[in-house]
């Protein structure tokens, strides 16, 4: 089932790439333009997706839905959490500062995994300070500075 879903996704992606590639301008006097490789990739994705779908359908027919490839698991909140926190960093680090945002991210993730509050605070504070100092000061990466000055 999972393979069938991915087969269809790749077919859709292939078609979308092909549609976008059609708009790439051709250079007069040249046989092959900027669209050649993206179009080949689109064809590859569509054909590959098609083959994957066919093989998944065959498996479904032979073994039935129970014994074919498993279903695509629905994403849980826990797996989305790190992604949400990265997005939060992107939007809020300029406002709050890189170090407080990192501290917040680590704190949330540690507590979510069952680490007790006090050790979680200690670990996140030390780790945020180390990362912030090593990248911001030693490697001179211009990490965003918040109202607290770090």
């Amino acid at each position, binding site marked *: 089932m999972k393979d069938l879903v991915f087969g269809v996704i790749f077919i859709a992606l292939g078609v979308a790439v092909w549609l976008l590639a059609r708009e790439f301008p051709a250079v007069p006097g040249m046989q092959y333009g900027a669209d050649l*490789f*993206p179009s080949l990739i689109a064809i590859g994705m569509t054909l590959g997706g098609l083959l*994957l779908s066919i093989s998944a359908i065959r498996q479904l027919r032979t073994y039935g839905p129970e014994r074919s490839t498993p279903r*695509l698991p629905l994403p849980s909140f826990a797996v989305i959490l790190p992604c949400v926190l990265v997005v939060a960093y*992107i939007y809020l680090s300029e406002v709050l500062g890189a170090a407080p945002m*990192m501290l917040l991210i680590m704190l949330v993730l540690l507590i979510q*995994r069952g680490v007790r509050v006090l050790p979680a605070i200690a670990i996140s504070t030390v780790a945020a300070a180390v990362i912030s100092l090593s990248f911001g000061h030693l490697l001179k990466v211009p990490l965003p500075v918040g109202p607290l000055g770090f």
Partner: protein
Amino acid sequence: MNELLDGILLVFNLQTLLVIVIAALFGVFVGAIPGLSATMAVALLVPITFAMDPVAAIAAIITTAAMAIFAGDIPGTYLNIPGTPASAAYVSDSAALGRMGRAREALGLNVTCSVIGGLTGTLVLVMIAPSLAEFALNFSSFEYFWLAVLGLGSAVFISTGSAIKGFLSLMVGLLLASVGLDLVTGAPRFTFDVPDLMGGINFIPVMIGFFAMYEVMKLYSQHKDQAKDNDSAQDIAPQHGDVFSLVPTHLKRYWKNVIRGSSLGAFIGALPGAGADIAAWICYAVSKKRSKTPEKFGTGHVEGLVDAGSANNAAVAGAWVPALVFGIPGDSITAIVIGVLYMKGMNPGPTIFMDNSAMAYGLFTAFFVANLILIPIGYLAIRSAHVFAVTPTRVLMPIILCFCIVGAFAINNSLTDVWIMLICGVVAYLIASADFPIAPAILGLVLGNILETNFMTSMIKADGNLLAFVERPISIGLALLVLLIALFPLLAKLWRTRYPGALPPTKEAIE
């Protein structure tokens, strides 16, 4: 001769040696924590190497990779959980030895074999790379096109698991490579009016996303209690014996295995697309097939361990042959390294030995030092194995996520790279959950531009005549090699019948 001396001096200075020691400790730590791979260690290290001299940066990567591959044996032996996929082939043997209280003996043998394997791989690199580069100077865009196809074909057909999935994963990588201004026409492609995408996708954030962000998401996809159990189950059995006392006896008995594992490992590593983990699996299977006591394999027998333990470290050095000579990565670690070499102004390819010969010799020296430092650092790691067992991944992963964010940002000081890292992490999580291998996507990203540029250049040169691609003797030879690689699934089928269990299951092939 002067260049050789200059190269050696580039490594034997306080700064570079200090970097090597720190990188070794970092590599041991990451490699020994189950779930964190050598590739992930290197991907996380790259943003830090930006502030270093080229040789120090490359030495740090070489040392980290060599250390992490060995350190993967530590949790494998003590806890029956391979630290890196390259240790998975012989984990049943090393874990059985650990249960018998012989973990130190097994790891002492492992570290020695890793050093021998690593040094053999380095010797192969030193001997083959310069002469191969001289030969490669005759290559034109036609040959480079075929080499790129060879690399991509290997990524799909040599990697284990479904070839269709490998192919689709490759397409994802090629699609990522086509983002940015077209090299020939200058037209923007898939940039969606984002100025940061005009220069193309920087592949370090992609690597961080594919290898580190993906691991973080994988941990959080596990049920909380299951993850907790995995952490708390790490209990080391009491051990006795010295680390190195029985090594001479074992080496005397299995010296042929060491030579075979090292040479075969270096050769497999040099194949584009086949990395240390595939080398370990193949050498373990060959060892079992050739052994007088195959029935003992998997029960705590050191023979397979000697073969595969030498092979995985030899493969790390072997993978540098195509990376240095042709700019074609041998595995995902060298794929990252190629990016670093470009950023440091050392363009991988045959001319590296002429334009940057001191640097190339420095790199060879770094390989020798990285492998020799394995002995003292490896010894310390074996003696303090408890540290790795008590470090829970649920504590490490949030810290790694912050490293990912800051590391991706540090490449161009741009939040667009953090977005790229996030999107790639999600894509890697989704495709890996459906058993798609990730390595072909990486090779697609690295080789996409080489493939397209050389194809377009060749087409302009040949005025659109496709036959020109098979007119030169070397290009036709390479084209035939591509054909052979395409027939690899058939050969692999024959191989599996002869050596059952020679190739890893799909999950291990992800790295």
